[in-house]
């Protein structure tokens, strides 16, 4: 009998746990995308922005760092990097394209087709998911690359399409990392005693530093966060990343 609370004891178990986790998140993401579609259709910008954030955070929680679901995954939330006309390029699609539209005065005419394509892409990913094998070697990479992406794309400001939600998205990335850590904790502990506990503490510190930036109005755009608070976030993510960087080597068998 499967006891859900116990951490997976083998890498195969960890991979299956991750599969179950991703399936659930994708189900939620679909719900958010439907809400988003309705709000965009009604030209209700405030609700649409809210639904976009919920959807984007949900996608971050999937932890799909470094294109782990191939082209199907890449279609959900690609950035505007490498497009001739940047964010205004007709090729730009997905969640970040919707963000761009919602923060650049675009209405249903422009955005409904983008949301519809997103829904179709989600369906395709969902349908293929059972066959999409997660390479066991991917799990430890994911453990550190989710936050590498957060620092590279969110906290740098590079990925922002107008929402200024870098901290909200980074917070979701912390959760994704915590989830993956929970799945690998047992294995990690046997490889390096005390390591998962240290990571756990550092991730909690990072989460707390991010939460401290939130005001009564909600999330603040990263450049507007007071320097002292930004320094705490940057320090906490920096420390966590240095520690997480050891994870892939611990699992490596070539020595």
């Amino acid at each position, binding site marked *: 009998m499967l006891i859900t609370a116990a951490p997976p004891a083998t890498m195969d178990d960890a991979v299956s746990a991750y599969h179950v986790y991703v399936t659930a998140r994708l189900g939620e993401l679909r719900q958010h995308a439907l809400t988003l579609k309705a709000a965009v259709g009604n030209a209700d910008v405030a609700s649409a922005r809210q639904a976009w954030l919920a959807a984007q955070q949900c996608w971050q929680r999937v932890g799909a760092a470094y294109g782990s679901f191939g082209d199907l995954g890449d279609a959900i939330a690609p950035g505007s990097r490498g497009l001739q006309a940047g964010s205004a390029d007709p090729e730009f699609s997905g969640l970040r394209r919707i963000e761009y539209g919602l923060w650049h005065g675009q209405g249903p005419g422009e955005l409904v087709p983008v949301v519809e394509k997103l829904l179709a892409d989600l369906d395709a990913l969902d349908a293929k998911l059972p066959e999409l094998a997660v390479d066991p070697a991917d799990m430890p990479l994911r453990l550190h690359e989710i936050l590498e992406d957060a620092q590279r794309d969110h906290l740098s400001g590079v990925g922002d399409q107008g929402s200024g939600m870098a901290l909200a998205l980074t917070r979701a990335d912390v959760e994704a990392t915590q989830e993956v850590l929970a799945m690998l904790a047992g294995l990690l502990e046997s490889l390096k005693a005390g390591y998962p506990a240290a990571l756990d503490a550092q991730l909690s510190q990072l989460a707390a530093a991010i939460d401290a930036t939130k005001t009564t109005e909600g999330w603040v755009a990263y450049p507007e966060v007071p*320097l002292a608070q930004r320094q705490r976030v940057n*320090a*906490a993510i920096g*420390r966590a990343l240095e520690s997480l*960087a*050891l994870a892939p*080597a611990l699992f490596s068998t*070539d020595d």
Partner: protein
Amino acid sequence: MTDPAPALAAPDRKHTVEIQRRSFIVGAGGAAATGLLASCASNATEPPAAKLASDAAVPFRGANQAGIYRPAPQQQAACFAAFKVLCSDAADLKSLLQRLTVKASLLGGGHKASDALPAVELSGVTGAPPVNSGVMGEDVPAAGFTMTLGLAGSLFDNPAYGLAAKKPRGLTDMKVFPNDQIDEAWIGGDLILQLCADSSDMVHYALRDIMKATRGQLQLQWKINGFHNAPRPEGAPRNLFGYKDGVVNPDEAEQLVWIGKESSQPAWTEGGTFMVVRIIRMLVEFWDRVGLGEQDNMIGRHRASGAPLGMAKETDTPDYSSDPEGTTIPLDAHIRLANPRTKETAGSRMLRRGYNYELGVDLNGNLQAGLIFTSFQQSIQDQFEATQTRLANEPMVDYIQPFGGGYFFVPPGVRDANGYLGEGLFA
């Protein structure tokens, strides 16, 4: 007929490699080291002067920190990096200072890939990312590296560390002077590292290495790289106004820099010094549109020779008492205001050890370039501020804009293997 190009003859490989691997001590024993370099070079077919210099090691240990009076000739490259300290408490701060001490001595000594590293440098995980970024190659040369650590008043004011009683007197925030245009992005920080080396890759390597080791405890708040020029054609190198800079500096024996036994400072500060960093933009385009006579009068020296006006050599001493009206050297010339050479002002002299910088393009299309003015002294108020106050409305102010920097206290040096920078704070 003599060989037309002996210098181009193939170098004796083995010999050259051997010399390059050796570490030379410069600074306190600078003259001896130079002699050693010369004698090695004369044996080699090719004098690899530049390569030899980059193997030079400046002793880390001593009563005072390095990067101030040692090495005697300033290194070519520098970085001034100011950090916010995010340590949780005094114990964490102590561990940070110990870590920085290990880094300063390791980097300053140079180390080969085959040398054993202290445990604190190792992750203990096989196949983990390399401890060394590889920027200096696998064998890291000493490259004349020095790390000078300074602490700002804000560190002593932070109740988390309980250091209020240890705060050096006069360690205030940087004063804003009449012509300053302070930019918030270029001030602040609890701790500064002045990293100097014979090459800019070593400075980069060191900063990156130190930051990696202190992630979570230090956050870089502002940083600026500087370069020191070669003498053109000899003597003190020139600054970006084209004038020889660093001609006059008090000798260590004059005791104007190190905090002594008899000072009114907390006891732990003995052997330390105060550091002032002022990042000063120089409006070089504007300056270049000024006649040479006016330029010379603003500085008080001849541009070509570096000599005081009316004199022949840069090392000549100006005689203000026989020029009371300022007919030869104007009364408001930079060097005359900065050091009037009177009994009353003798105590306000300081050690200057600045670097030139370049930072890209200003909004108006001009070069953002200037001087990282750096001075070391026993008292910021009696030396730097007294001098800066005399300079307040000098004619040169039209061509310069101080916009950043800070005041710091440089703790005494580390004397023995178990010591660490700032240990007096915890005694």
